[in-house]
């Protein structure tokens, strides 16, 4: 059953029951009061008749009654006089046989209400002395008619008020459930994937519910967007990966096929074999790097205090000559004694940054590596004087396989994974990779260790 119907009936049914009970009680009380009044009235009349009878001798009883009866008839009261037998009866409706004189006690007024042929009578009997009784009878249909009329009035009033109550109840039930209806509508929207929900907020229960609902839909939208973004980035990653794997594979398969099918001279054969080897290595290299990227999620690595002097000596060893041969200069300025972390991974991330710097730098430029302490944090910076990176590219540069200068990067054997590996390594160490750059001046890549 719908809530609005429940509210509607919840208002209407109790109201009608209460109205009916109250009416019945009031009508009955009123009726009883009226009957009691009739009774007392009848008893008063009976008393005055009694008094008149007592004043005269028994033998005049009948005459006295006869005299009085005219007077009482105008009051619609009829008298039955009994002295051993019915001596006088001017009642048209009451048969004296119906009166059970044995029930009547001395100095008592015996009053009955009787329904004779759908006429109501109040009958009061009094015992004067032995075997002498006076009975007065009055038709009290009026009282019963009054009750009937009252009942009809009540039904009429209840019916009208019920209509009014029903209208009010309908309005109340609709007003109360309107926010629910709207919520239901919005909920349907939500289930269809539309997160654009703005319910009216307020301070009552529905208003607060609406507020929570709005918050929930916003949160849901956020989560959903995150998921979509995550799925997209996964898809992009897979697309890129397949493309990156495809290129060396095409070379390997193509050159192998060419060697098998074409008539090549020794020089060509050697050249193509080298290509095949190179491309194979490229795949291996990429595979290793990818492994490293996925490695962080499920492996804990060995952290310890690493002596930075040793690290930089090793780096200088690896790069000094290569950089000098390329016509550039490597300047290392180390003020750190130790960094807490994994030695291999940290050397790898610094090396990646230096390799990147080499790839973008031209002859006669400097590559600076600064390691220092600041505000209780440790930093390793690689500064180049290359062409710089646009803001748009800085955002994407840590995505796997993203390259700013694709052709140049490939020529240098890059797979576009170096910076994403750096970023992962820094995340594993609870640190950050910070990239700053200015077009035309160069870039600064900073590893921040907490």
């Amino acid at each position, binding site marked *: 059953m719908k809530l609005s119907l429940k509210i509607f009936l919840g208002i209407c049914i109790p109201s009608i029951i209460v109205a009916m009970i109250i009416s019945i009680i009031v009508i009955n009380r009123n009726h009883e009061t009226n009957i009691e009044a009739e009774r007392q009235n009848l008893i008063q009349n009976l008393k005055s008749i009694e008094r008149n009878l007592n004043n005269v001798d028994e033998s005049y009883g009948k005459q006295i009654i006869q005299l009085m009866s005219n007077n009482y008839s105008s009051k619609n009261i009829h008298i039955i006089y009994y002295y051993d037998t019915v001596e006088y009866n001017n009642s048209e409706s009451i048969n004296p046989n119906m009166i059970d004189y044995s029930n009547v006690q001395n100095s008592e007024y015996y009053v009955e209400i009787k329904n004779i042929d759908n006429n109501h009578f109040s009958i009061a009997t009094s015992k004067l002395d032995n075997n002498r009784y006076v009975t007065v009878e009055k038709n009290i249909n009026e009282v019963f008619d009054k009750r009937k009329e009252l009942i009809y009035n009540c039904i009429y009033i209840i019916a009208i008020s019920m209509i009014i109550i029903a209208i009010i109840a309908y309005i109340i039930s609709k007003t109360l459930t309107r926010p629910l209806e709207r919520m239901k509508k919005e909920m349907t929207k939500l289930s269809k994937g539309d997160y654009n929900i703005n319910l009216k907020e307020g301070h009552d229960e529905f208003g607060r519910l609406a507020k929570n609902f709005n918050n929930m839909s916003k949160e849901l939208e956020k989560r959903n967007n995150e998921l979509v973004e995550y799925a997209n980035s996964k898809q992009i990653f897979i*697309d890129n990966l*397949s*493309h990156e794997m*495809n*290129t060396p*594979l*095409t*070379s390997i*398969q*193509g*050159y192998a*096929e*060419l060697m*098998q*099918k*074409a*008539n090549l001279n020794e020089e060509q054969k050697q050249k193509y074999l080298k*290509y095949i080897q190179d*491309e194979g290595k490229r795949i291996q290299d990429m595979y290793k790097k990818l492994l490293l990227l996925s490695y962080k999620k499920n492996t804990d690595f060995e952290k310890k205090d690493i002596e930075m002097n040793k690290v930089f000596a090793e780096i200088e060893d690896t790069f000094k000559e290569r950089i000098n041969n390329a016509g550039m200069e490597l300047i290392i300025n180390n003020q750190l004694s130790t960094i807490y972390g994994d030695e291999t991974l940290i050397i790898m991330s610094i090396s990646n940054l230096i390799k990147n710097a080499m790839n973008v730098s031209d002859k006669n430029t400097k590559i600076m590596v600064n390691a220092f302490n600041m505000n209780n944090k440790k930093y390793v910076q690689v500064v180049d004087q290359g062409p710089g990176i646009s803001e748009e590219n800085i955002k994407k540069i840590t995505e796997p396989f993203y390259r700013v*200068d*694709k*052709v140049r990067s*490939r*020529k240098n054997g890059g797979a576009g994974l170096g910076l994403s590996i750096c970023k992962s390594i820094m995340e594993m160490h609870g640190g950050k990779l910070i990239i700053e750059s200015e077009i035309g001046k160069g870039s600064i890549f900073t590893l921040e260790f907490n």
Partner: protein
Amino acid sequence: MRKILIVDDEERIRELIKMNLELAGYECIEAEDGEEALEKIKSHSLDLALLDIMLPKKNGYEIAEDFIKADIPVIFLTAKDSVIDKVKGLKLGADDYIVKPFESMELLARIEVVLRRKGKDIDEFNYNGVKINFSTRAVSVNGNQIEMTAQEFSLLEVLIKNKNLALSREKLLETAWGYDYYGDTRTVDMHIQRLRKKLNWENVIVTVFKYGYRLEIE
């Protein structure tokens, strides 16, 4: 000679395609990015363009239109292998779409089909006195007409279309005889012997040890 533009940002892949095409008798021009490729439209009269999609500067989809406007047939040669990409490429008006890695024979066959459709195929083949007309199917050696069965001619056609590339016996059976032919590879050997004899090509159709045959033409 028919001129084909190879656009790919990977030098080695360009070299690979070039090598294959040159062996089959095409002239090749290379471009490593979209902009360079567009310049080649003006500077060369091209018969066909092989375009990679993911290119620096301007991507393959962007430049394809210019080629099609210049009435140069386009074949996409790319690592992107999703149906959406293929449909997109073909809708742009490209004549074919080949996914990397590719087989040289397939590449050549598809190029051949596109060129033929554009009326740019070579009807005649001349080599050292051997003259073959593909539309009339007439073969002559030093002016003398040579009788040839239909099967011999289709084998000869496959060899010429893939000249300078070795073809395995199985591949020859498959392409010259058709998939539904249940023959022995010795059938191939027999037909090759007859071709050699009829055309005087004892040294031109070379046996590749334990593999198949190659038509060697400078």
